[in-house]
């Protein structure tokens, strides 16, 4: 297929490197966001008067500021002259995406847990189930059903947001397309990048809407 365009044929390895990096960013970012989300939701729901405001502050601040600003901040913060964590833009990108997306995941998991009626918890507790058992057998099985559709939506948005990581010099799809455009003056890189993004986001959106519909009727 790539033979259709001389520019793409010349830079095909580079293009696929971009595609690979986009996948790494999306998957890595989502895993990180899930870890942060579980911690954040735990803080918000069971953190008590001192820790739950920390969770709330994290969610509200990172949801309501642009990803570009957060990524640029992370790039400077993690750079060798400051915290000396890494200058690798892919790793900075994964961390930045995870921190940003983690705020949405926190909120999704929290509202999933809260969607379970408090009276069910009280009933389970008075039947003699321990707190852990209540969580394991009563709250989480129901919460997971509520959480999955929003998590799917978050994953779609995250996949699209990987394009912004190009701004901190990570070679993801859009950045790669830009480099091909400057080197060969051909627009084909952008068209291929668009199609590549669609190959990721459209099936994901299809699956999410199917799950949404199924869970809606299952309720």
């Amino acid at each position, binding site marked *: 297929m790539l033979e259709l365009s001389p520019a793409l044929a010349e830079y095909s390895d580079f293009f696929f490197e971009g595609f690979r990096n986009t996948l790494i960013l999306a998957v890595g970012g989502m895993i990180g966001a899930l870890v942060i989300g579980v911690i954040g939701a735990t803080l*918000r*729901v*069971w953190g*008590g*008067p*001192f820790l*739950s*405001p*920390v969770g*709330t*502050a994290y969610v509200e*601040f990172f*949801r*309501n*500021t*642009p*990803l*570009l*600003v957060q990524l*640029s*901040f992370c790039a*400077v*913060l993690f750079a060798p002259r*400051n*915290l000396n964590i890494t200058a690798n833009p892919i790793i900075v990108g994964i961390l930045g995406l995870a921190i940003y997306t983690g705020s*949405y995941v926190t909120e*999704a998991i929290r*509202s999933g*847990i*809260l969607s379970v*009626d*408090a009276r069910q*918890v009280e009933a389970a507790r008075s039947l003699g189930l321990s*707190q852990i058992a*209540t*969580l394991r057998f009563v709250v989480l099985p129901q919460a997971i059903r509520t959480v999955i559709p*929003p998590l799917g*939506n*978050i994953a*779609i*948005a995250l996949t*699209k*947001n*990987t*394009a*912004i990581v*190009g*701004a901190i010099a990570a070679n993801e799809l*859009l950045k790669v397309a830009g480099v091909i*455009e400057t080197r060969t003056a051909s*627009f084909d890189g*952008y068209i291929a*990048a*668009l199609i590549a*993004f*669609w190959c990721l*986001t*459209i099936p994901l*959106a299809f699956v*999410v809407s199917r799950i949404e519909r199924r869970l809606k009727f299952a309720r």
Partner: protein
Amino acid sequence: MTTVRIGRFTLGQTAIGRLGVVIVAAALMTAGVLSGALPARRWEPFFQATTWTFLGEGLIVTLVVGGIALIGSLAISVPLGMARTELRGPLGWLVTAWIELVRATPILAILVIVFLGVPRLGLRLEALQAATVGLIIYNSAVLAEIVRAGIASIPKGEVEAARSLGLGYTSTMRFVVLPQAVARMTPAIVSQLITLIKDTSLAFILGAQELVGYGRSFFNFYGNSMETYVVIAVIFFLICYPLSRLSRRLEARQPPTDRVVVTGEPDQLTTATP
């Protein structure tokens, strides 16, 4: 603790919550200054009035771009969403395909393609104009989907009743469907406005001078990049946070079954608790 306590404290609901946030923020700042990671002298430029007039100019650009993009995409989204609902056949597929493809595209890709692609067609575009056009293209598609979902949320019986009472299509829409649909759509639209305002920062990647661009010129002069990014983030937060509160409040007013949500836009995630 004998009971499982569930979300008793959320920001804004209790004074303790707000106080806690302020204390945490202050502690982080103090720790930053004391540890030397954020030296106090790099914060000093922010105590000068000229700093704020400078960043204010950038903020005005951001707000103007956001405002134009909002008005433009709202204006396009209503007919687009109605066409998505009503049109059948090839024309309907075309509208559906357009909306779905645009929504499946990263907004930055749309911005870049408008910025680099339109001049190839022989039309000159400044970075800021290209960004505004790109924002309108993306957000009009999302808002059209919100309009479609809003119209679809009105029971069919009401439309049929209006039609059998002799109202035409336009009158049915104008007096029966849209007034109710708009009320249901408003929380989703406000949430989308948050996404839009955050996305105006992407104009910077095209080389436009908006808030982030002004911030960059600023820290190139003073050498305080981290501090400037924090300040820019706080400015965005002060605009977006009230909007998210507003959206939640509007949403809490309506029954959960009336909620209009569009796939793939996490800013519309409901935060209302049962």
